[in-house]
């Protein structure tokens, strides 16, 4: 049987179970509205302002960008790893060159301090 068809069956089953779990509280639990319940938890203080205008600290953005770069590198390594035995020394040299370029980049960001988290 086509493995992707099996995957679809699995996905449907998991989605079903997850959805049932999600709505279980709605079905089984009580629903008494009270103004205090819907206040956001801030250890007793009234909530400060809306989240809509909150600024996203830029260092998280930096981490995400760096993650993208290195994750793409890892993704390129997968087909190379699977076909490695057919590629031999030449393949190693090629991938070595690729990794060397990225290693230089990694050394740069390390030196520049992009990996520091204050």
């Amino acid at each position, binding site marked *: 049987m086509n493995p992707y*068809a099996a995957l679809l069956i699995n996905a449907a089953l998991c989605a079903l179970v997850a959805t049932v779990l*999600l709505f279980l509280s709605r079905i089984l639990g009580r*629903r008494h509205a009270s103004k205090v319940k819907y206040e956001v938890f801030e250890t007793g203080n009234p909530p400060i302002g809306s989240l809509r205008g909150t600024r996203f600290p830029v260092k*998280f953005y930096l981490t*995400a960008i760096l993650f993208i770069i290195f994750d793409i590198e890892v993704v390129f390594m997968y087909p190379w790893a699977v076909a490695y035995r057919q590629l031999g020394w030449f393949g190693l040299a090629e991938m*070595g060159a690729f990794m060397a370029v990225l290693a230089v980049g990694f050394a740069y960001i390390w030196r520049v301090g992009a*990996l520091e988290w204050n």
Partner: protein
Amino acid sequence: MDLIISFGTALVALLICLQVTVLLLWVERKGSALIQDRVGANRANLFGGLLPFNLGIVNTMIADPLKLLTKEDIIPAGADRFLHWLAPWVAVFPLFLTFAVVPFGDVLVIGEREINLQAVGLSGGILFVLAMLSLGVYGVIVGGWASNSRYAFLGGVRGSAQMISYEIAMGLALVSVALTYGTLDLQHIARAQGQLMWGVVPAWGIFYQPVAFVLLFIAGIAESKRAPFDLPEAESELVAGFQTEYSGSKMSMFMMSDFIEVAIVAALTTTLFFGGWQVPFLYRDGFHFPGGLTVAIPSLVVTLLQIVSFLVKLFVFCWIQILIRWSLPRLRYDQLMAFGWKTLLPVGLANVVASAVLLLLLEGWTGT
């Protein structure tokens, strides 16, 4: 017929996932109690005290989940309703699906039919697992944002930053495994570990890639935001981090995602490094010991032994993760990020290069 078999294996995989999760709840409570030299939950009794012993397991596995599921479902004011509903679903769905590619046995032979005991026989199994774990990050971020609470948002963002930092280390460990076995299919990797090295030692992955094992294990624990990497949900600091504004079944889904990830990391480790369902010296027709002794065993018993072996190994690694959680102090956030980027990433890269070079030098020594 194929459809029914596929559905059957899917059901079994999902059941294993759910059962292990629920059991882990209890094992964690009792285990942590034993580690901390106390008794743990033991106050529930059956039949109103008829039996002369108390059972914490009833408390943890039955009463606690029921209590959580019957709590009121509260969505804070100003929260994005759709995202609030979506976040736990996105947190849990990919993790359920990951178990679909984990092989829990070799083959089940019924009549003339050989059923591969793996819900989805994807040839890119490892890649699929990595993809699903990456999807799990969305649950954290969306959960934090949808709560309209500063604390939750901060917890969510920090949690997701941590998760993606350690995903690279995991990916690199898995690349070296792919190098060693020349395939990404988990069932093939499990089968390849049935060979014997020097005629005596089973060729488990740990002997070929010890560094990758350590890397995968540590990165896996960090990915699931468990201690010592659990600052995003640090109880003393951010209440419950990104889960603060969740109640009832949605909260239970976030908690479940924690334990499902424990099970996933354990399942990955056993499949890739400890032979998965392999029992040493057990082949499809029985035991073949190195001395020459052969014990013939019916195929159904073989399958049963292999499934039991998988579950035992799964629990060993779940227990090790629980042990680590309750033994080590928490890492501070910048230590955490520094560890992921400055230690694990270079080690992972070095391991890939070293494995590649060694593989070419010793060609024919590690064959599949």
